[in-house]
């Protein structure tokens, strides 16, 4: 069986094959022998070369959260659009769009259409979970359009401001 996952936009292909004892994973030239036992839907005991690891995994909308060695790695199943935006650490949208990672209320838009802005300049203040967060410009450029007003509720990923990046 072959699987493909995305980590921060990079695709990784991985094959699972039977091995002498248990299984092996094949990633390009690397082979990783392992033997596993499923403890529950979300919990696995895996032996990597005799090293015993508890691995916890959960999935939602094509996003896999893998907890191993005290760290969570989020892997997205390749070929799936619309991976759950709010669930993970997505970056701001395109470089010419300003959006928020959290649902929230727009407290104040600090710029107007046609304004020249600089990288990291605060453009919008959004309140989420009782905290004010500054949304900064991802680039030097000019404000092309503004799509919300003060007091509006905004969802993650919705463009609040469209920019024309400076060259």
């Amino acid at each position, binding site marked *: 069986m072959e699987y493909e996952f995305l980590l921060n936009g990079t695709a*990784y292909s991985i094959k699972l094959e039977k091995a002498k004892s248990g299984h092996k994973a094949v990633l390009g030239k690397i082979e*990783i022998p392992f033997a596993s036992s499923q403890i529950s839907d979300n919990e696995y005991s895996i032996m990597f070369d005799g090293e015993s690891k508890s691995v916890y995994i959960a999935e939602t909308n094509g996003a896999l959260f893998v907890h191993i060695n005290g760290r969570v790695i989020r892997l997205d199943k390749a070929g799936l659009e619309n991976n759950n935006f709010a669930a993970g650490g997505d970056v701001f949208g395109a470089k010419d769009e300003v959006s928020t990672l959290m649902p929230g209320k727009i407290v104040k838009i600090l710029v107007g259409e046609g304004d020249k802005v600089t990288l990291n300049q605060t453009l919008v203040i959004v309140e989420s979970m009782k905290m*004010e967060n500054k949304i900064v410009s991802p680039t030097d450029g000019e404000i092309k359009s503004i799509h919300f007003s003060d007091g509006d509720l905004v969802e993650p990923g919705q463009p609040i401001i469209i920019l024309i990046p400076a060259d």
Partner: protein
Amino acid sequence: MFKKILIANRGEIAVRVMKACRELGIKSVAVYSTIDRTALHVQSADEAVCIGEAPPSESYLNIDSIIETAKKTGADAIHPGYGFLAENHLFAERCEKEGIVFIGPTSRSMKLVGDKVASRAVTENVGIPLIPGMKHKSTDPDECLTAAKKIGYPVLLKASAGGGGKGMHVARNKEELKEAIESGMREAKSAFGDPSVYLEKYIEKPRHVEFQVLADNHGDAVHLFERECSIQRRHQKIVEESPSVALDDDLRRRMGETALKVVEVSGYTNAGTVEFLLDENKKFYFLEVNARLQVEHPVTELVVGIDLVHAQIRIAAGEKLWLKQEQLSQRGHAIECRIYAEDPENNFLPSAGKILYMKEPTGPGIRHDCGVYSGSEVSVYYDPILSKLIAYAPTREICCQRMAAALANFPILGIKTDIEFLKDTVNHPEFIAGNTFTNFIEKNMSDWPPETKIDHLNRALTSAALFSSLPKTRISSSDGKSSIPSPWESLGAWEIAGG
């Protein structure tokens, strides 16, 4: 003693108070908002009443609705937890008027200590050391700018009514202060309903050290030693410990005496916390009194051996203080880490969503005060604290290791949390060395997270592929055979509901 206590809060603290009620043979009443129907605190109470819609102003801050619920359910006392109405003197006053015991200080002393400016005036009179600052609160930006010039930059802007870092900003010059005033007043208005702010000198590289106090209604008080809470982000604590490595016996005694003096002059009763800043030269400044049970109260409980919620309830019920200062001592070391739904890689931005899976850490010396479970929805409406992990050990060194190990075995999947960040914090050589100053994160954690090691990634990918290849809700191992035989297969025919 009370028969029934209403807990005017949610999350881990509501659950923690309910447990204390049960231990004391007192019935508990949960209140909840419409989106909290399946929240853990609702499941943990003896009774539960929906008090309004999701926005806090309509539910957990809705005084009328909470009072009405207390009357309807026959609760004779209300525990406010922390946050929400815990330090709202109007709520305490309303309880007093309605003949319901408010488990906390009187509205009068709460009003005094809650007003940072009024409390400064009272404490300054009796010679308690204070940080230079404005004499009164203000809503006038020009007045603040003039005051800042006199105090000298950098200055710290705070919400007059606030706590928890909300509305708090550091300004290093006039331009930064202008921006901070605007933002701080808005946050203060939104979080506390009062836009007033005040300014004080910002002390660089301090430690945050606070003293837990207990005062009964009969004029007696003790302190339960210190907690150091220097590890903060957004001016909000995330790691707390007791004892503090910065205190020796003499300093501890002097700070404890000062804390009790603050309690005395403000007529404070019940459990409270006297906060200090300790500078590099071991000079301490009184900051404020937190008129509530603190988030970090468990570290004191473990080190001093006193259940603070029990103590709060007994004092509120009118008991005389059963503790003498000279009987109290600190034993061992405790560290608490606050587990927040937030993204440390993204300026600690709160992270809402569903907890797909979680497993609570256990083991010797591990306590987990938790308000969520696998399947919980973390809402955008409330403070993103999920739980608190507390480690206790004979020494600080073992305590750090115990905490790090527990954090490493604490999966919460589906939302972002600060667990990995906390693990790397308590594992940091500077933390282990006790070099804990309030700029710790800025100074030591700015290059976090560490890069993902290729071996680690490969193992994660292997696990993800394995997960994707297996059918769910079936126990099996990688050789394809079922590792735990189902009783239906192994035991032959079962007789269902036979006889």
